[in-house]
């Protein structure tokens, strides 16, 4: 419509637009059918592999099932147990701390590194290759590697402590109540900062340089430029990165499983690990389903809140008024 009224599109395109609009209803209808056939395979896969299991987990949360034997309907017993389970409550708390701490640690470092490697200098590309290395390693590999490094008796850090005079490194990193969770936060950051760095690098490169040029002509300091140009321009990058960090750390499992198995005690027992234990150690699949549903709901709520509060859903332009 717009195109036709102001006539800026090439003539051929105008004709196409017109033609589509002039098509008889019947033909449009058959297009609709073709669309359905086109998306059907994806819909089926998604339905069977994603939606159906969610529904079944929700149903299973009302049953007792040990993996063999019969399912027994128990109503809200599992849910009631969840609301009175001190371990689950504690796991929720640990999960929350992990998510917030991960965000606080990863975001500033990712922004700084992202901006650094957004520069076009060649030496920065070389550094970038090193920074991004953890991204290509498997999580279990990372877990085993750090387990070896952090071992207080034979680990690399203990060796440094004894042979390089860095005695503060001689810690029981993963086995002590005071350090275990923070060690996990640090290792998750080590693994995921490269990914978010890439996001911020791309985001930074998309900010038009004219903005900075104009600002510096107006006498804005670097800091002012960062606050008033960069951050607003990176708004959506920040939202995407934060959503991935927060929702990602809700379901974070592998490194914790490999390194501490939730320990010492339950100091690093996140909700996903609690779910794993309930399902595959205790064989209480009904209760594990409750935890799975809770985890899923929290994830969706967090994602929705982020999108809503930041105005991400409106998809308004950040470059309005720019020539």
């Amino acid at each position: 419509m717009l195109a036709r009224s102001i006539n800026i599109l090439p003539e051929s395109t105008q004709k196409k637009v017109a033609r589509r609009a002039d098509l008889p209803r019947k033909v449009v209808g058959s297009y609709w059918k073709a669309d359905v056939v086109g998306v059907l395979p994806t819909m089926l896969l998604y339905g069977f592999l994603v939606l159906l299991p969610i529904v079944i987990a929700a149903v299973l949360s009302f049953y007792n099932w040990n993996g063999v034997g019969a399912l027994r309907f128990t109503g809200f017993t599992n849910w009631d147990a969840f609301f009175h389970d001190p371990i689950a409550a504690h796991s929720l708390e640990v999960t929350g701390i992990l998510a917030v701490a991960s965000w606080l640690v990863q975001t500033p470092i990712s922004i700084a590194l992202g901006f650094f490697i957004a520069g076009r200098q060649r030496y920065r590309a070389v550094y970038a290759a090193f920074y991004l290395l953890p991204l290509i390693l498997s999580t279990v590999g990372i877990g085993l590697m750090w387990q070896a490094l952090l071992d207080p008796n034979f680990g690399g850090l203990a060796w440094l402590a004894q042979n390089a005079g860095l005695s503060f490194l001689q810690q029981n990193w993963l086995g002590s109540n005071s350090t275990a969770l923070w060690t996990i936060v640090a290792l998750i950051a080590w693994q995921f900062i490269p990914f978010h760095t890439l996001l911020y690098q791309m985001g930074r490169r998309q900010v038009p340089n004219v903005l900075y040029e104009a600002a510096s002509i107006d006498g804005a300091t670097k800091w002012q430029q960062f606050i008033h140009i960069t951050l607003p321009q990176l708004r959506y990058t920040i939202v995407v990165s934060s959503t991935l960090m927060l929702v990602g750390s809700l379901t974070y499992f592998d490194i914790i499983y490999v390194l501490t198995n939730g320990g010492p005690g339950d100091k690093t027992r996140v909700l996903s690990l609690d779910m794993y234990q309930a399902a595959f150690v205790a064989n209480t699949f009904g209760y594990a389903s409750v935890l799975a549903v809770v985890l899923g709901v929290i994830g969706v709520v967090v994602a929705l809140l982020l999108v809503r509060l930041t105005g991400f859903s409106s998809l308004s332009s950040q470059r309005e008024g720019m020539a």
Partner: protein
Amino acid sequence: MSTPHQITVGWRYRKLRIFSVVLAISGVSLMASGIASASQSQSAKHGGHHAKSAKSAPTASISVWFVSNPGPVNNYMTSLANKFDATHHGDRVSVNFIANTPFKQKLLTAMSANKPPTLFFSWGGGVLQQYINAGDAAPIGSASAAWTKRFLPSSLGAVTFNKQVYGVPIQGTQPVFFYYNKKVFKKYHINVFPKTWPQLLSDIAKFKKEGLASPIEMGNLSGWEGLMYLEYLTDRIGGPQVFEAIQSHKRNSWSNPAIKSALVDIQSLVRAGAFQKGFDAVDFGSETDALLYTGRAAMTLMGNWEVSSLLGEDKSFVNSNTLGQAAFPVIPGGKGNSADLEGNTSDYLAMANHVSAAQKYVARLFLEDEFTTQQFAKTEVASGQVPVIKGSGSYLKHANLHQYLIPTYNAVSSAPHFQYSWDQSLGSQLSAPLYLDLSKVFELSETPAQFIQAMNRAMTSVSGGL
């Protein structure tokens, strides 16, 4: 077989459960497939299965799922199957070796999908009982069958339910002992391994005072290693009946004073600094073994697979007889017999219920012909194990590592009570909180009273729920 190997390490003893990570991630979808197959199996069970009538000896192909175990055990499973095939015309035994952790979940899925293997590896106890209760495991014979008399009496307890035997021992027995580094003991002028608990504590104090940072090594990441202390201490203090009450889910049976006293003893050990730094962030494996053979630790409490495990890490340490083996110390005034043992009595092959009558017939034949004989006892000894078949003591004399195998055999033969590992006995639903709360006791973040309260509560919720 001259090559030493790792004696069976039960699923709970395995460190590499990493593959199950994948399962956890797809946990939700697995539950989905589970529920679907469970309803399927229900209908199949009602539909019944067409059994061949077994008037003349039937023939069949049977499948065996075996937990893979690098070394001679895998080899003799294969050669026994081949031998059976050759001597029983028309029968075929195919053995599938499956890694430890995937095995457990694969079996669960196969059972609930009603497509089980004919014979499956089992550790007996509460987990096997879950399959029996679900109608998924069939008895192999009555507890008075002739072949059951060929085994040491203590070895069939974990697979005997309602006077029926549901498993045949297929590997050696695995009691738990203290293993110690004789050189380290000598260096700190301690000549004999302590026979009593107070002596152990004073020896530990001596080690500490003279500069040995970690007298005892332990890998308690998954919780079972600490459990062995609780099992032994409880038995030494209160006798076997304390755990018998717990196993029969007697209300508040965790409140027995013997449990509390055992937990207090554990914490006094921790407070004395007996264990190495980071004992709760490492599992049994090469790191913990290294502490012992490098002399950074003096001793460890471990199943008898420790011998072959150490042999794999440092041959000369074991062959030079630097490794000592000793019974768990006595508690003065305790009710338990000082010869009582704790550990895994044996590993077993159990039989699935939803297979054809011909397959059951052939499976029973295979078990009885190949695993209950003196010939099999010799095979086990040759692969470095201590058989639970009566009369095999004489084969041990010339075996490799006889200095460890013979005392083990004698201890098992003369033990008034061989307590099967608690986690296996109680089943999965109770062992999960048991691992968690006990690890907190070891980390001094939970008091004995809190542990007892938590376990009593967990037990009521299990008996009420399942």
